[in-house]
């Protein structure tokens, strides 16, 4: 009878409260959203957690996600380059060069479409693609996850973040998406200018920054927003310094890359690409979807004198008929000085975004 009793007690001990597995108690992650930014929409099926964000950071820098264990997301999205690639085109593990410049990863939590052609509608969807792209990381997700699940540390991290011991690509994508949503840039000199212009109260430290803004920087901002000046604000507007649209900004008269048109199959979209943010533009060279411009001076010169007319050119490039907005040397300098106010050193150097 005693044995029976012992077996029963053991049975009870083993099976009782099985659902309350120890270790899965994710901690909600509180995003620090700048006061002049809108709230961020977080997908219901991927709530932000401290454990998810931390796992995402590990995965962002994890080379096991590539076929030969040599490349991670950060290879083409380097922190010092505002999480973009300083090379015109990124080279994948097979030594094949891509055809577009890697986009800067800034404030992605407010974006509605991803890649230059907008082919991904969510961050989670976007993250899945470079891993399996033969000219990028060239790895299958099952193999990548097999490598990760073979690592005890990752198994624990996936369990703590998602309560699963059978993590798959969707968990990896969710974790990286959580990490990317924390990458918020909103502490540049421009932010103080924006708040001032929109009658949003400034803190004491922002007041000090406000006092340091030069007449040239204000002059550049005025020119940036002037219809008869640089006329940049139609596409680069609001606290995010971008509008959500695809635009043909007059780079070419004929297209070698159809951009958005490749995705929609609509010829009216040919030559259009996602409007990028101008935040941290100082660090994210080279510029344009194909990285054709090495410097900000090249970009300013393009909009001033070298606009190419094509059937899908953005109607908001109103001076296209004259080749551009015709800025003189002094105006170009003012614009450049304003563009440099978009640099957010705290973002670039944030240890929370660095390799673990």
């Amino acid at each position, binding site marked *: 009878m005693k044995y029976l009793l012992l077996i*029963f007690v053991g049975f*009870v001990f083993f099976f009782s409260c099985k659902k309350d597995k120890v270790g899965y108690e994710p901690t909600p992650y509180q995003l620090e959203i700048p006061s002049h930014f809108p709230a961020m929409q977080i997908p219901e099926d991927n709530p932000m957690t401290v454990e998810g964000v931390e796992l995402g950071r590990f995965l962002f820098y994890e080379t096991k996600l590539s076929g030969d264990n040599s490349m991670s997301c950060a290879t083409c999205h380097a922190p010092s380059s505002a999480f973009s690639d300083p090379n015109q085109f990124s080279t994948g593990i097979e030594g094949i060069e891509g055809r577009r410049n890697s986009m800067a990863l800034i404030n992605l939590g407010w974006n509605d479409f991803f890649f230059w052609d907008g082919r991904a509608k969510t961050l989670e969807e976007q993250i899945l693609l470079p891993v399996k792209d033969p000219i990028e990381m060239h790895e299958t997700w099952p193999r990548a996850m097999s490598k990760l699940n073979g690592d005890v540390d990752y198994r624990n991290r996936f369990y703590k973040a998602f309560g699963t011991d059978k993590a798959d690509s969707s968990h990896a994508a969710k974790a990286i998406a959580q990490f990317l949503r924390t990458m918020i840039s909103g502490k540049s000199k421009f932010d103080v200018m924006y708040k001032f212009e929109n009658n949003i109260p400034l803190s004491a430290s922002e007041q000090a920054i406000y006092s340091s803004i030069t007449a040239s920087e204000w002059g550049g901002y005025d020119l940036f927003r002037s219809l008869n000046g640089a006329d940049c604000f139609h596409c680069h507007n609001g606290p995010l310094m971008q509008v959500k649209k695809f635009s043909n900004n007059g780079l070419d008269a004929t297209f070698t890359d159809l951009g958005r048109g490749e995705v929609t199959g609509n010829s009216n979209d040919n030559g259009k690409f996602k409007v990028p943010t101008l935040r941290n533009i100082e660090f994210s060279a080279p510029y344009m979807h194909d990285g054709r411009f090495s410097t900000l001076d090249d970009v300013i010169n393009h909009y001033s004198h070298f606009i190419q007319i094509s059937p899908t050119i953005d109607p908001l490039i109103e001076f296209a008929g004259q080749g551009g907005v015709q800025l003189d040397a002094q105006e170009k300098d003012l614009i450049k000085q304003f563009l440099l106010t978009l640099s957010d050193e705290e973002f670039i150097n944030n240890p929370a975004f660095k390799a673990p």
Partner: protein
Amino acid sequence: MRNSIKIIVLGLIFLTSCKEKDKLEPEEEIIGNYVNIEVQPVYDTEDLYLDSVYTTQEGYKIKFTDIKFYMEDIKNVSTQFSDAGLFDYRTRGTLLSRVQGKGSNYMNLSANIGVGPAVNHNDPSAFPNSSMLNIINANDMHWNWSPGYIFLKIEGKADTIPDATTSLNHTIVYHAGLDVNLQTISFTNITWNKVGNEETFRLKLDMAKFLNGTQTIDVKDEFSTHSMGGQEALTLKIMENFKEALEPY
């Protein structure tokens, strides 16, 4: 033996106590009635499609690439329908505004075409995400230099040289805003079309009438306004013609 039985009974209680107890009953799905205001752009008698080419009264060829506008403070006297609806033909189709409710509560509606001064100059990030006035939804319909909202935005291209070839290289950009240009509109005895639990009030926006209403807009010469100084007359004409072109369908 008695103790053993007690332990077994206690054990059974312990074993079953945690099982399923935290399971919540699934929440009952809320089924409600929705009321929608939709706007169908037309060109005279036919439905209008962006990027398609139409002929103006003057014989010009014209295509519209974007049609967007705000209708704000939509209400039936004191019963608010919505704080603001945003029409964006390219990205949101014909929908202007959609709320939960019943059409019978909104037999008459009034609204601003544009955004009234009470909210026009507020911080656009401070509106709730669900509001079309939030900067994320407003997107390119907000000027941070004014600051304020763009009330309506019509963009396109035209060929104003009537010859055998169509060359749409004449840019048309109408961006109207500023408090002084705000228009109000009202609809009475509204007919709500009911399908299932959806009720819809349909409007049409006749772009031919917009160009050739009581006032004529000659796209050859009147092709651009950003509501700046010197553009007051065209901006007001744009707003007034737009109001005239919007009517129950």
